[in-house]
């Protein structure tokens, strides 16, 4: 759950507009208005810098960026080598690679 926590903390600190409420991992950013279009840009910048992945424009879609859990799954997929993607389920990186 480390990736989820990092994402959640970034959003709560930088993008979240509603005070004193917890951010549910599965809440839709669009439906709840948690993150606006500028926030999506900031999330992309954060994900690239924090997790060392490159986000292609075609990957900036609801399925990847619309909740904490979706974004965490996207990050894990990006960090998993392509040849192993279809062999093993996405899992938390080992300590040496983790931030």
């Amino acid at each position, binding site marked *: 759950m480390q990736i989820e926590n990092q994402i959640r903390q970034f959003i709560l600190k930088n993008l979240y507009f509603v005070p004193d409420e917890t951010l549910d991992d599965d809440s839709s950013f669009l*439906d709840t*208005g948690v993150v*606006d279009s500028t926030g999506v840009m*900031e999330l992309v910048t954060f994900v690239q810098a924090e997790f060392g992945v490159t986000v292609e*424009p075609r990957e900036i*879609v*609801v399925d990847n960026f619309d909740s904490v859990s979706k974004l965490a799954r996207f990050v894990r997929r990006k960090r998993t080598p392509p040849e192993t993607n279809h062999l093993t389920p996405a899992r938390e990186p080992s300590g040496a690679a983790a931030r």
Partner: protein
Amino acid sequence: MQLIKNSLKLDPAAETGRIVQALRRNVPGVLRRRGAVVGISGGVDSAVVLALCVRAFGPGKVVAVMMPDRDSSPESEALARQLARQFEVEPVLEVVTPALEGFDCYRRRDEAIRRVFPDYDAGCGYRAKLVLPQNLLDAGTLNFFSLTIIAPDGSERTSPLPAREFLQIVAASNLKQRTRMATLYYHAELNNFAVVGTANKNEHDLGFIVKYGDAAVDIKPIGHLYKTQVYQLAAYLNIPEAIRQRPPTSDTYSASCTQEEFFFRLPFETLDLLWFAQEHEVPEAETARVMGLTETQVRRAYSDFASKARTTHYLRLPPLDLNESPAFAVPTP
């Protein structure tokens, strides 16, 4: 309510009469002003508003102001002059480039562009625009802006925009609408006239508007009309064909950019009916059936409209009064 393909068809004669009566009633009666100032851009919205104001007050009580800057297409001024001639209003030309240079508008904007494309040089003929993904119905893409630059040889390059550069480009560019607002109010106060807004419902309610820029007006005669309804009035009011046929532009960036590219992501014929359906809580299945779309496509459009309205809600708010308890209430989408 039942959605049909003609749900947005209005009676242009009746609607024109209603708007003209409202202008005649409110401008002198409520605003206590003697006429109208209209910014004309060569686009269909300002053309319709000029025509409505001339009907309401007569050409002698309407000031039509053209406000190009160095990025404006020459076609815009030519069309605005054609419009003014047709409605017998002598247009006023206010070139706002010096004012924008005084605000450092171009330098601030181009500085941000160069952080993305270091070789960008407006002085050498490079042009730029912001665009959103154009596949709103077919993919769950989010409203993520990209920057496109066009080199003097016509070649184009596009890059996703980081947030910092996006905010700086928009903040600098919005100086244009705010400068035009100040210019319009100069003419309004000079003549004791009202500033009549030219934003339509799409622009106002979905947020394609600048706070205290083009949103700062005294009265909004077409603020309740969908874009396609503005075109219906334009045909009825005999707006020049060249203006009616011209694709709506953002008229903000140096590269030619349609409103669909920059903000709305859908052709207006599709957007308006989808948005009407969403506003009237038409079930996705029914909207899909009427419009020949899938429910997924309708859901994506509904979600985009809700997101845009929510994100831009603050643009439509008056200054918050901290003494009022609902001041920080989050609006219900």
